[in-house]
């Protein structure tokens, strides 16, 4: 079997004295779409934010594409990575946030161009061309000049996906990408994500969209109280949950 894209071993994280992750073990294969579900406060978003080191883990190890995240192992000691090295790791990991976090003072095109221009050092022409292509890919070719405030929630989230794709990530993290959207706008965002999965992108998707998880997900993880309770094929977990906590949760959301 090939090297996993993401490997988590006994990942723990506390906020102050409150443990949020109590030892997460997970593997995500290249090209896999893993959906993470669970009640709020179960640690799903925190785990996602640990993968690109927006949160620093307290114990355990986390690798993306074979690279230890946030630390360097020298002998039996871990050394924290410098800001510059952490930034370099994050370049290869795209993230899409629940509340979009587009840069409001930039147009859709400028949002997508920013990282290629400033981080990768692309020429303005190359960055513009790529940004236009990406916005076309998410169905917003006619919105390049609009500011985020002039776009609907669904359009903003599609710009955010294009912005993350602009750095050619090998892994995409989605943190409840449709939770802040009006119901009629959810579909357009899920369509883009479905296309992305079809193109072979490795994705971890924290979501409440069970239909999406069932249809697009290769695997489904149910988290509760900082632990992975159950993991399996989405259809299997959704129709035949083995653990009673999974059953209790699914009976409320399905």
């Amino acid at each position, binding site marked *: 079997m090939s090297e996993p894209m993401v490997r988590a071993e006994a990942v723990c994280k506390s906020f102050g004295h409150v443990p949020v992750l109590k030892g997460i073990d997970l593997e995500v294969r290249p090209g896999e779409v893993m959906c993470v579900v669970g009640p709020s406060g179960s640690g799903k978003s925190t785990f996602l934010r640990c993968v690109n080191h927006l949160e620093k883990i307290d114990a355990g190890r986390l690798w993306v594409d074979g690279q230890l995240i946030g630390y360097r192992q020298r002998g039996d000691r871990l050394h924290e990575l410098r800001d510059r090295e952490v930034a370099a790791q994050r370049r290869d990991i795209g993230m899409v946030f629940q509340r979009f976090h587009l*840069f409001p003072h930039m147009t859709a095109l400028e949002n997508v161009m920013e990282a290629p221009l400033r981080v990768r050092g692309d020429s303005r022409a190359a960055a513009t061309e790529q940004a236009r292509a990406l916005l076309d890919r998410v169905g917003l070719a006619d919105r390049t000049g609009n500011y985020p405030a002039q776009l609907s929630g669904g359009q903003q989230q599609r710009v955010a996906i294009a912005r993350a794709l602009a750095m050619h990530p090998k892994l995409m993290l989605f943190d409840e990408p449709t939770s802040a959207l009006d119901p009629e706008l959810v579909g357009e965002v899920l369509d883009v994500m479905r296309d992305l999965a079809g193109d072979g992108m490795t994705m971890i998707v924290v979501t409440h969209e069970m239909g999406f998880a069932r249809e697009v997900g290769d695997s489904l993880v149910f988290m509760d109280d900082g632990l992975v309770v159950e993991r399996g094929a989405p259809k299997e977990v959704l129709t035949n949950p083995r653990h009673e906590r999974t059953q209790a949760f699914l009976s409320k959301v399905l």
Partner: protein
Amino acid sequence: MAERPDHREQRHPIKAVPVRHPGRWVAGVAVAVLAAMLVNSLLTNPAFNWPEQAKYLFSPPVLDGVRNTIWLTVAAMAGGVGFGIVLALMRLSANPLLRGASWLYVWFFRGTPLFTQLLIWGNIGALFPTLGLGIPFGPQFVQGQTNALYSAAAAAALGLIFNEAAYMAEIVRGGIQSVDHGQQEAAAALGMSRAQTLRRIVLPQAMRVIVPPTGNEAISMLKNTSLVAAVPYLELTFTAQTIYATTYQIIPMLVMVCLWYLFLSSLMMVGQFYLERHYAKGHRR
């Protein structure tokens, strides 16, 4: 059940009797009378001595004073904004020594009067008779007399800059803190460095919050430059004082100075309008 009245006629435009507001009329008349008295005084009171004002309005000493007021305002704001950003970043730093130093600085310069500070800057030679470059607590390589190295203009500008920086530090800090933390996370997730995030993402958005109070600071600064008479340094107001010290035309000179300040502050308000519009980018639909 009562029969519903026929509302079809209500589609015609309403022609109702408006409510009368006698209070507005009374207040309006009072203001009009006061304005008439003011204009009458401006035109007929000989103490305004308009010809005297006209004689000095564009005279070389007054124009020199205007020039000094302008450069002091520009220098004090430029220096104050630059230093204020540094102080704000220190205040938001993870390093407790930097945070403490910034707090102490703001505490001192906001807690003492600008006039008093300017008096101290004017007499700094008494505190530090010599200035030198060398190793702290060690030997000095170059050294000179403070009063020889240091002019009244420098004292005036430094005094205003150091005071303004304390106020700007608070304004910039408020602006930076007004930017949603998610913006920094989004930039970090794209692999942007802290410096890039600050310059490209956080500061441009903070500007929307920083610019309006900074415009007010700049307009205040224009007028506060008159306090550098404490140094002493010859700017617009101090120039007027030196003129009326010999002509005894006190009111005409002071009114003339007011006209200059009004003209300059009006120009600044126009600039402020365009600056605010620029940084509102993305917030207009």
